[in-house]
């Protein structure tokens, strides 16, 4: 269970990007690869804990799950083996360890309101 460390990493990344810009963060969008070692459900849970008392408090977390894609040398193409996790080309059955997608663990974007004072009015 290292999702709490990951959640803190997300808070750090967004906080650094925000800098001194005033506003309230509404949503953080991240990409989680099937080989990233991160469990989306656990991350949702930890995100709430990690954002408490930060500028991200109350923000939602949107997770885009990225399936594994490999380079198939036979088909000369990037292909996505269907789940469960495998590294076998779904077209020609060639096994390939050349992973092209699926290791992502990235903050894609964040949404924020830069006039939070109007809200309570």
């Amino acid at each position, binding site marked *: *269970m*290292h999702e709490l*460390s*990951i959640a803190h*990493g*997300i808070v*750090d*990344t*967004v906080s650094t*990007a925000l800098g001194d810009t005033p*506003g309230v963060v*509404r949503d953080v969008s*991240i990409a989680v690869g099937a*080989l*990233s*070692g*991160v469990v989306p459900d656990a991350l949702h849970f930890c995100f709430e804990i990690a954002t408490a008392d930060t500028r991200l408090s109350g923000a939602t977390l949107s997770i885009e799950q990225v399936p594994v894609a490999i380079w198939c040398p036979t088909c000369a193409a990037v292909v996505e083996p269907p789940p469960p*996790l*495998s*590294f076998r080309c779904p077209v020609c059955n060639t*096994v*390939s*360890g050349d*992973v092209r997608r699926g290791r992502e*663990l*990235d*903050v*894609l*974007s*964040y*949404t*924020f*309101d*830069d*006039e939070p004072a109007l809200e309570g009015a």
Partner: protein
Amino acid sequence: MTRIVELRAGVLKKNDELARALRSRMQQAGVFTVNLVSSPGTGKTEFLKQTLIALREQGYRVAALVGDLETENDANRLAESGAPVRQILTHGLCHLEAAMIGDHLEGWALDALDFLFIENVGNLVCPSSYDLGEALRVVLLSVTEGEDKPRKYPTIFNSADLAIVTKMDLAAACEFDADAATASIHSVRPGLPILWTSARRGTGMSEWLELLATRRDATRTVAAG
């Protein structure tokens, strides 16, 4: 006004940057760094202890860092090899991070070392996400754990550079199926090299030591060129 800000930044950027700095520091100092990862109970500590003893006998200068949640037991066991060893206590954290490695290297003259081994916290899930600046990531699997473990924990096997099967002296008693284990490992990481070892009996250790020396020489050639 609501704004959307594109970032495209790695969540573990801080760790990755520290790891990259460690890697170049090690390369400049000529230290070949190995990160050992496995479940608890696979036999990492005994395997590493025998590795340290054998490398020292060959005249190599070696050191080890060992991560655990609590106790200095493993550091004490490893220190029996005569090599300098430091324990990293994570106090509950399930993996090692690059910053902990940097902190625990303080005071060690890296250019006086040929190999540095990092024994990660026993865990097949979390250590896979954290680069420690190693030149070689080794995942260990014991014959007592079942041949299908790689399929259950694909991420760590997929991120490794080498798999080592341990406790081969118990293979017959466990009815261990080496072909099934190979198929399981290769289903999640096609072509991953596998070594079959018993630290207690010495099985496969010369192959392992040879691999270490070869890989280290290759890194040094690259660094020199």
